[in-house]
């Protein structure tokens, strides 16, 4: 019997003065055990200050730097040059920093340029499963380190929410990958579809959780359904108590856990009050981890999630062509419809109707939410 690896408590950092300003007191106290860096989010920068590189290198040398991709667009059926560039960039930064592990998000990005799009769910069928496995393999082949996927905060239907964990398990298992369990994402899904969060947690493959994220979010009114509010994963607020409760619950159940990360956007960390709250959230998170540590169940193999190259079956050409057409149509409708009712009408006569997208079961308030997000980012 071995011992579970210690869980490292860390924060998501990037070249942002508000995030760094909030992180600085924690770094000064030497209590940040790991850093998560979105290596593809500095695409606007040509010049990076040497001290930022030194900070990343300091953590990398301690095997405490993890890479978190944002813009690969794992399920984009239409392979683009941008994705080739993304993989090349990943190879380059990984060869320099040697991430402990690398993760990406579930979904595909709308828009021709993914930086101007928003991540959307895909139908959970054999085409997307094989496509996702193929794409994970592309990442794994480049980096030869553990790779994982994060659960999505958004779905169009309750059925998709309930099936998400199972689908993630099938996706990552093929390459011996793991899951990032973002507890605020899970909370968003549970709240928006009126599911008990604890019960939803049970539907996830908790034995595959190597990393947990916690963060805050915001509320948005639905104009289609009176009195209904939608929980959004905007990462701009402190961590709500319910997410800490979910964390406590999860810590006892995720035996393979090695990293736990507090994420907050710089825009939510402008005031001194918000920076202090960030520090309090981090300490609360770290204390919860410390309390649970002695009770975690060994063994957990350190090499448990070593990347395993594998033979993947290719999705059928017809399946990919259908998916391309449907993703293109959905993106276009979300971007160009003049209103939500008009979007819903168009969807009902689109190639997504009576298909695996199951748009007939989509929640109209969630369609409105997707519309708002895409309108903002197009």
């Amino acid at each position, binding site marked *: 019997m071995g011992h579970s690896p210690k869980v490292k408590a860390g924060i998501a950092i*990037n070249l942002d003065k508000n995030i760094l300003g909030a992180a600085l007191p924690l*770094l000064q106290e030497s209590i940040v055990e790991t850093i998560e860096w979105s290596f593809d*989010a500095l695409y606007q920068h040509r010049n990076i200050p040497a001290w930022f590189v030194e900070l990343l290198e300091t953590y990398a040398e301690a095997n405490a730097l993890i890479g978190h991709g*944002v813009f690969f667009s794992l399920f984009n059926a239409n392979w683009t040059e941008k994705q080739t560039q993304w993989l090349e960039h990943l190879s380059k930064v990984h060869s320099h920093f040697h991430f402990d592990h690398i993760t990406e998000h579930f979904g595909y990005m709308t828009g021709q340029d993914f930086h101007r799009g928003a991540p959307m769910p895909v139908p959970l069928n054999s085409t997307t499963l094989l496509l996702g496995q193929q794409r994970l393999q592309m990442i794994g082949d480049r980096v030869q380190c553990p790779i994982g996927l994060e659960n*999505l905060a958004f779905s169009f239907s309750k059925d998709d929410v309930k099936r998400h964990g199972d689908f993630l398990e099938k996706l990552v298992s093929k390459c011996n990958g793991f899951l990032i369990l973002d507890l605020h994402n899970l909370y968003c899904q549970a709240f928006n579809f009126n599911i008990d969060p604890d019960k939803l947690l049970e539907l996830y493959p908790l034995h595959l959780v190597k990393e947990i994220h916690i963060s805050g979010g915001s509320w948005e009114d639905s104009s289609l359904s009176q009195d209904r509010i939608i929980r959004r994963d905007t990462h701009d607020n402190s961590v709500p108590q319910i997410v800490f409760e979910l964390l406590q619950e999860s810590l006892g159940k995720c035996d393979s856990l090695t990293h736990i990360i507090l994420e907050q956007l710089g825009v939510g960390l402008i005031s001194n009050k918000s920076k202090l709250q960030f520090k309090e959230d981090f300490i609360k998170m770290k204390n919860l981890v410390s309390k649970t540590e002695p009770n975690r169940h060994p063994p957990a193999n350190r090499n448990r999630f070593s990347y395993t190259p594998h033979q993947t079956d290719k999705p059928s050409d017809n399946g990919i062509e259908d998916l391309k057409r449907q993703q293109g149509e959905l993106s276009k409708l979300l971007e160009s419809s003049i209103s939500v009712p008009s979007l819903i009408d168009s969807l009902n006569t689109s190639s997504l109707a009576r298909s695996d997208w199951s748009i007939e079961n989509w929640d109209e308030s969630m369609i409105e939410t997707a519309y708002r997000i895409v309108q903002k980012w197009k």
Partner: protein
Amino acid sequence: MMKISKSLLKSIALGVAIGTLGTSCSSAIFTPILEDDVEIDADGNKIDSIETESETNPDTCEGDWDCPACGLG
């Protein structure tokens, strides 16, 4: 415990204080992945519609309330 050198902490504090992140070129490891979309002015600042839309923080994609950078913002 994760010790960071005093000089590095000082540099971070200075970078945060002056608020101009990204002023000195460090190395070639950060070639932007979307160079064809990026125009840079003489001071090394990006000239692009995304950046001008982001009023709160032009430094990274994390500069807006609904950033998709962390899942579905």
